[in-house]
């Protein structure tokens, strides 16, 4: 059985890595405006510039963001023992949005570049997680209470975002709307590198934690009786989720459905063992968002639709089908 699991894990890792690699390698070549491959081969403008400075970083951003959202969904589903948990559970996503929108609304436009919005979004996500952790130290909460608290935090943060949106001037209001729609735009390589530097260690930590996540599925008493510090793992997991969601939301805006759909779909294929599900979710989520982004910029070319619209339109019906076909 040990060898069987190792062999399955190798296959899952290979297949999901291959899916991510193939989509990342092929999708930059696809798009609304056709590419002159001769110019691309000779590294001539404008095709070479479009490919290197727009499509490649955009694809890599989609890959990282998809992996982060899908991985965070899988992590929250494990920690909260709830199949419907997503990155927006506990209000992390909404709090990150509130942080980012606050930065856009209150600071001069030239200062609302990457670092400020990013740090504000991270601060928003961290504030919610800090609040949950502080409350958790005061008394024990059930997963159900945490989920309901998340719904309340979501509502409060969304209302505050709308308030800021209403009070902002017309330019800021447009910027906020654009950001709230969510999308994977071209990004500078240093920013992409910084994002990768934050996210990849969290991915590795989650992969190493996957056997413990299996035991968390049995509840606190059982996990504690097997030597697992349930509360410590839970709070560490929440903090990791906040980093993933806050880090990516600041750059892309809110993108729905990836954290719910991808883990559910892959759970049906690879099973409930997090040693298989976690790597599949990370690479599969990345591949999924790269494909959705390619559709977003190709379907109505030369117009682009926000990638969040594509994930919801593709993911929503598919998710309903998944639920009803059980």
């Amino acid at each position, binding site marked *: 059985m040990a060898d069987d699991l190792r062999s399955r894990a190798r296959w899952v890792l290979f297949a999901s890595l291959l899916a991510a690699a193939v989509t990342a390698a092929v999708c930059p070549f696809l798009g609304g405006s056709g590419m002159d491959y001769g110019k691309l081969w000779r590294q001539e403008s404008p095709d070479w510039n479009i490919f290197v400075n727009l499509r490649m970083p955009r694809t890599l951003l989609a890959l990282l963001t998809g992996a982060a959202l899908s991985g965070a969904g899988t992590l929250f589903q494990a920690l909260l*023992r709830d199949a419907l948990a997503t990155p927006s559970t506990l209000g992390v996503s909404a709090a990150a949005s509130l942080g980012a929108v606050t930065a856009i609304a209150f600071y001069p436009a030239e200062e609302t570049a990457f670092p400020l919005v990013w740090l504000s979004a991270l601060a928003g996500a961290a504030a919610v997680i800090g609040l949950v952790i502080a409350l958790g130290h005061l008394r024990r909460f059930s997963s159900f209470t945490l989920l309901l608290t998340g719904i309340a935090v979501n509502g409060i943060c969304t209302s505050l975002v709308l308030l800021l949106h209403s009070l902002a001037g017309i330019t800021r209001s447009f910027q906020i709307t654009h950001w709230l729609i969510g999308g994977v735009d071209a990004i500078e390589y240093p920013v992409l590198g910084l994002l990768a530097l934050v996210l990849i260690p969290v991915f590795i930590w989650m992969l190493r934690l996957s056997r413990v996540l*299996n035991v968390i*599925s049995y509840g606190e008493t059982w996990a504690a009786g097997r030597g697992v510090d349930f509360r410590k793992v839970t709070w560490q997991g929440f903090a990791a989720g906040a980093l993933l969601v806050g880090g990516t939301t600041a750059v892309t805006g809110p993108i729905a459905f990836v954290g719910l759909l991808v883990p559910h779909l892959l759970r049906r294929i690879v099973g409930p063992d997090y040693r298989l599900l976690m790597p599949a979710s990370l690479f599969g989520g990345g591949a999924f968002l790269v494909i959705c982004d390619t559709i977003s910029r190709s379907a109505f070319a030369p117009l682009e639709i926000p990638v969040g619209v594509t994930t919801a339109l593709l993911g929503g019906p598919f998710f309903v089908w998944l639920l009803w076909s059980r």
Partner: protein
Amino acid sequence: MSLLALENLTFSYPGRAAVLTGITAAALGPEVIAIAGPNGAGKSTLLDLLSGQRRPESGTCRLQGRDAHQIGREELCRLVAHVPQMIPGDVPFTVEEVILTGRIPYGRGLYENEDDHAAMELAIERTRLNDFRDRRFSKLSGGEKQRVLVAAALCQQAPILLLDEPSAHLDPENEAQLWELFRALRDCGHLILVVTHHLALAAQNADRVWLLDRGQLAADGPPCDAMRPADLERVFHVPFHWHRSAEGRVFLTYGR
């Protein structure tokens, strides 16, 4: 040196009256100890203290001569395996996978090793779960689930097993088999502490009974000494009677 020694153990939940007061008891070696008492007497809390999941307010719990709360979490789980009353029924794993959770205290590597699988096979054999090993835990009956949890505790290879009402969901046949298993495990060197409300079975199968009453150890001894009808009636508020059959077997019954 005692396998388990409790000295003046006291515990209360924050803002509430003491749940356990001055519990002093010991187990020198392998035996089956039934922990009995009315609801709220502190039986499950006592198991939580013994397994290190809660810290006593005062007093000590020594395992093989060492203070349980000075022992690291994983090492403690290699000394004591705790089986709670039940785990969530919708756990999506197979019987083998549930049993292998007992190997977590032996290493946090991603995969189980050969020793882990050997321990699992032994646990499956002892609990006679071979026919169920590939089945989903969520699809099992209450009694089968309970056997799987006991198997997981056995897979933990701890000398002390703590079981919280393990026969609560079992029919008489499975219940009798479970007690038979406890006696067999005692013969293999385990100390078994079983919280139970089934006093008649405890009287027949346990080597010793700890009778708890409102957080205090009201009696500690072999069933015939610790379960005297007068003591039991004082604790449970119903009359108890011992009977002897024509074959010489003794039975405990209760009720007016």
